[in-house]
């Protein structure tokens, strides 16, 4: 939708408000009011693509007797989420910021896997040299070993960003939607078709007042199933300009609040580089 007047008001964007709707260890849902969608989208994209986290990059395989190919095993190891919150990655540098030629202990963490069959090898068998940087989950099956089979390898984990590989994406689901707005006109003939059509239980029919009530607007996905079944065209689904419901879910490696903080840092660094460019240009 194109705004009615394109002139930027002085106060615009300055009265942005945020309410947290729900929050746990790896998921946060919050409502942003009076924000510009370009800003919200910038935050979303940076959360997914430019917030660094740790993942296994190089695997040196000493012995692998299992039926699984070395490269398949290396790929599986890369996808295992490793704890990379601010506390764990405090002293770790991004490989491009480190002044070493290839790899050094300041930009890498080594993990060792040594196991003899028979049995399933789990992510808990990965022994890290850093007690803080370790697999988030202990129960990820990596490979299976038969009688007398052995696996021995050394893996090197590095910081990286989602732009380079999906294993460095700290978020799984990271998305926002417009805040839905449901309007029911007086032409409603109380047929209740819309209540039945809604797949998410957003609407309810109040037997006392004989009218359709909106009970859970924030759950509305704006699918318009209710609009299609309404014969009198009384119900309409719209959205509130500038209000968003934002969801950030992580794979457990970084807490969602931290992802947002780091995303804002990246965004302000980008803005700073524009400022320095402009000042230098004049």
């Amino acid at each position, binding site marked *: 939708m194109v705004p009615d007047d394109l002139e930027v008001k002085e106060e615009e964007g300055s009265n942005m408000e945020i309410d947290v709707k729900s929050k746990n260890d790896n998921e946060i849902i919050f409502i942003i009011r009076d924000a510009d969608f370009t800003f919200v989208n910038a935050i979303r994209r940076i959360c997914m693509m430019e917030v660094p986290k740790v993942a296994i990059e190089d695997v040196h395989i000493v012995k692998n007797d299992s039926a699984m190919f070395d490269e398949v095993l290396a790929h599986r190891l890369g996808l295992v989420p490793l704890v990379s919150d601010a506390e764990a990655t405090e002293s770790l540098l991004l490989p491009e910021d480190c002044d070493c030629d290839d790899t050094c202990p300041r930009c890498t963490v080594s993990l060792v896997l040594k196991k003899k069959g028979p049995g399933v090898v789990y992510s808990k068998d990965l022994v890290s040299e850093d007690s803080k940087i370790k697999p988030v989950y202990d129960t990820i099956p990596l490979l299976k070993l038969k009688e007398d089979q052995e696996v021995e390898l050394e893996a090197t984990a590095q910081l990286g960003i989602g732009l380079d590989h999906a294993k460095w*994406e700290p978020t799984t689901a990271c998305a926002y939607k417009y805040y839905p707005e449901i309007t029911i006109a007086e032409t409603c003939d109380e047929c209740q078709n819309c209540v039945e059509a809604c797949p998410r239980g957003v609407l309810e029919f109040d037997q006392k007042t004989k009218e359709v009530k909106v009970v859970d607007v924030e759950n509305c996905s704006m699918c318009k199933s209710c609009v299609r079944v309404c014969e009198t065209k009384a119900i309409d689904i719209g959205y509130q300009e500038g209000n968003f419901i934002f969801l950030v879910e992580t794979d457990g490696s970084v807490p969602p609040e931290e992802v947002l903080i780091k995303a804002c840092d990246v965004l302000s660094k980008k803005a700073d580089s524009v400022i320095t460019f402009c000042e230098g240009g004049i």
Partner: protein
Amino acid sequence: MIPIRCISCGKAVSAYFDEYNTRIAEGEDPKLVLDDLGVTRYCCRRMLIAHVETW
């Protein structure tokens, strides 16, 4: 072997694989087990439901 992450969204679903299997073997309803494990999206649920362990 089950893929480490959900192919669509990237959630580490393989971490729940063993628990899911043992609870299904005990006769629990797969729907309730997945809800309890926090596997809510249908992309992640199909990873566990549709997986066939061949070797």
